[in-house]
């Protein structure tokens, strides 16, 4: 087989185009990574392994897995991301079982974390301390206490299961864009949560 000029140009062109796409992907990577399904907390590892097959989202009995959108970056689109507004994670491991690339791993809810919960500015107790304690009542792990009428999450206990987000009554009916609005409590990956706490955005 002899290589022609045309072959050479095709090879260079295709490589340049695909590297360009990936380059834009790198540039549009958002710092605000969403919470990933169990065992996918190393974002780089997850990006390399997930083939966006949709099986984990489909099988989740709690409907707590959603899909990423292009506005969050080229890499984010179609990647599974936790949407706790629809349900919590029960660590049932069904998603782990169907993942064809081991992008997901079973985790120990007593040790490992999907992320951690933080109280946002939409929490009802900002305006009216003592008016709500749903998150404390529903947390399966007892990670939330009420201090001075306001919820406080013990981030060493919280594993990010999302039950508090799922049931938080704040801003449930006020949203235009279904899932994307922030509730009174939200779960973020640990590093994102830490940054938001440091910035004073959440507590």
């Amino acid at each position, binding site marked *: 087989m002899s290589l022609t000029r045309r072959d050479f140009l095709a090879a260079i062109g295709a490589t340049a*185009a695909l590297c360009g796409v*990936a380059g834009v992907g790198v540039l549009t990577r958002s710092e605000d990574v969403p919470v990933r399904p169990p065992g996918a907390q190393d974002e780089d590892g997850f990006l390399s392994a997930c083939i966006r097959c949709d099986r984990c989202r489909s099988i989740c009995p709690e409907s707590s897995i959603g899909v990423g959108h292009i506005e969050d970056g080229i890499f984010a689109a179609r990647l599974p991301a936790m949407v706790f507004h629809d349900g919590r994670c029960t660590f049932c491991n069904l998603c782990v079982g169907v993942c064809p690339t081991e992008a997901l791993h079973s985790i120990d809810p007593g040790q490992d974390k999907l992320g951690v919960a933080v109280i946002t500015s939409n929490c009802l107790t900002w305006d009216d301390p003592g008016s709500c304690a749903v998150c404390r009542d529903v947390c399966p792990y007892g990670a939330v206490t009420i201090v001075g009428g306001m919820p406080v999450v013990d981030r060493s206990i919280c594993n990010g299961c999302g039950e508090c987000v799922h049931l938080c009554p704040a801003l449930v009916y006020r949203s235009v864009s279904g899932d994307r609005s922030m509730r009174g409590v939200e779960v973020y990956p640990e590093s994102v949560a830490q940054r938001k706490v440091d910035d004073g955005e959440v507590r």
Partner: protein
Amino acid sequence: MKPSAQRMLAGAGVFVVVSLGLAFRTGLGTPASFGLGVFAAICPLAWIQEALASRSMTVPALIGITLVIAITVVLGRVWCGWLCPAQFVRRFLGGRGQAAKDQADKPTLDISMDPEEVQADVQRIVAGERKRVRRASIPEGSDSRYWVLLAVVISTFIFGVPVFCLICPIGLSVGLLIDLWRLIQYNEVTWTILVFPAIIVLEFVIFRRWCHTICPIGILYGLISRLNRTWRPQVDYRKCLRATGIDCKECVKSCPEGIDLHHPLDSADISVCTKCRECVAVCPGSAVSIPFLAKEFTPSSSDLSSHQDQPRR
């Protein structure tokens, strides 16, 4: 039912299965990975990319690729002919004239013969003498899809992300269905719903012959299909009009892949056959069939590599 209608039905089935996975918790998946539990076929390109990007090989993925290879060895490149959503994109963009346009775009095989030549040619074929008749006017250079495949390998390895998945028209069309579903079910509004179709249209408008010049998945299936010996189309020369001296080329013209069943060594290799059945449907003498095991074997260049009488390209 025309073969094209049958294939559309099969292709629609893919979207039905994905929709089932949206309506119920089937976990069956999408073309990227499809099956039950760990017994799921994996897109061969996704498998390569995932292994390169994560620099690892996992057991479920190995099971998946084994399944895909096994299916492709038996069925050939059926994914491309029957299931791939590209058929809908091409139809949507091309409108009614798509078949004629495909015809005009295809590299032609201008082997014309006079009646005696045709009959002598048939006698040679029936006697089992397959040799190169004339070089077809296939464009110079090798199949550009291999270069795209190489580019996918390089970019995926460098960036550590399955790069082709980001622009894969198959993945994007399934992703679009998922996003439309979630728009209705959860009122989830996203630009993705506009961006994905735009990317797909752009790809097929810029590269009108996307499947034949770009798609690395198609050529991967073609590579695996070199092991395929079953369900190869064959010509029965007791019925073929060429045996009577008529220079009939209906099956050749109908083949979207550019295979000439009479002169398979001069045309695109039989391993790229998608079993689309166009040649079967079009033959005026009903001479073409696709049996499980062909009696009159339509050879591929790899079958005959032992006695090559002409230099290979």
